[in-house]
């Protein structure tokens, strides 16, 4: 018996063509995806060692001489498979705008200040229980040109590998109670409401550290290894 992965996992994901998000118009395939047999090439995937990440990589407020401007936050959660089992030792990469809604990137021309004390990128590896934790500052909203008066809700980009080629995930974490979510075509591209809600972190008093920072909890569910094996 070989462990294979259920393909229904795709149903929680947005469609490639979602015209409310204009950039999908010329970048989404015309043809349906080809279903292929899952082989060793898909059931394996890149493995990162814990040694590739330094302890300060997960604290985005301590990467420069002084503290960045903005509201300090702690973002923590667990990476789990679809059966609720932890995904240990997997790399998370995050990136985000600064408190004013500006990225350190040459393409970002938003008229908001850069912060010399904030790069906006971090990495960490999950522990044996699948837990991760970042310290950062709350990102600002920023305008984009998708439609008139378009604003991206504050978000943090997450990139994860998981245990196989199939579990690769790039997503965005949003903040609770944000009125911009109801207007954001990227957030709304996820068709299923329950799946959309999973992209919104929750304020968490347990993660909140007294006299230091508010805490947000964001659990990430990767489909892949540990999926109910099917005989083949």
């Amino acid at each position, binding site marked *: 018996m070989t462990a294979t992965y259920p393909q229904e996992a795709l149903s929680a994901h947005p469609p490639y063509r979602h015209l409310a998000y204009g950039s999908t118009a*010329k970048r989404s395939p015309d043809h349906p995806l080809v279903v*292929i047999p899952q082989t060793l090439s898909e059931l394996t995937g890149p493995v990162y060692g814990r040694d590739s990440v330094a302890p300060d990589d997960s604290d985005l407020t301590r990467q420069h001489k002084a503290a960045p401007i903005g509201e300090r936050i702690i973002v923590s959660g667990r990476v789990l498979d679809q059966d609720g089992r932890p995904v240990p030792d997997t790399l998370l990469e995050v990136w985000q705008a600064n408190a004013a809604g500006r990225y350190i990137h040459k393409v970002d021309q938003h008229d908001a200040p850069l912060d010399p004390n904030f790069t906006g990128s971090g990495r960490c590896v999950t522990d044996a229980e699948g837990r991760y934790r970042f310290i950062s500052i709350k990102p600002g909203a920023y305008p984009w040109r998708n439609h008139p008066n378009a604003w991206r809700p504050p978000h943090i980009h997450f990139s994860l590998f998981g245990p196989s080629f199939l579990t690769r995930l790039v997503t965005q974490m949003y903040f609770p109670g944000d009125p911009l979510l109801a207007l954001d075509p990227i957030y709304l591209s996820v068709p299923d409401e329950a799946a959309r809600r999973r992209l919104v972190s929750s304020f968490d008093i347990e993660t909140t550290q007294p006299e230091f920072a508010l805490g947000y909890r964001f659990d990430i569910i990767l489909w892949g290894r540990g999926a109910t094996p099917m005989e083949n």
Partner: protein
Amino acid sequence: MLIPTASQTVGPFFAVGLTRPELADLTHAGKAKGEAIVIEGQVRDGEGAPVPDAMLEIWQANAAGKYAHPEDRQEKPADANFVGFGRVFTDRQGRYRFVTIRPGAVPGCGNALQAPHIAMTVFARGLLKHLVTRIYFADLAAANEADPVLSAIDDPAARQTLLAKPVNSTPSAYRFDVVLQGEGETAFFDV
């Protein structure tokens, strides 16, 4: 079962968090075993315009046909200098370039070998979920003919899109363009 976390686009600013220049050279500065090869090409959109803000990742077996992963239990030699994972960004002309090792063949379904190939993942602004495809080598016609994944593609023209064409150079180079949409659209997989 828990609802999976949905994919969202990498957006235009992924370089802030995902830049790893060392991942363009999978040979570990030439220390990996096997024949060094170059995979290069261009990413284009549905109007044939270059995609200057794509991120491409590749995953492949070593020269002996073994993946650096615990699920690969084949009795083949591992290579401590070859992880098999690469990542590059396209430039303003939509071009990319990896230096890697020619992969050995790995098993497919049952005992039959698959043709040597490299798995590729495409991320970009405007892609709400990454796209998955495979790079095969056009000069391995007999192996490609018998490959179970290539055989799953009915349209011969779509099959052709997965064949990297040899470029006359040293080290051996292959050209593999990625067309996201329209004429010559690359075959993408539901895995």
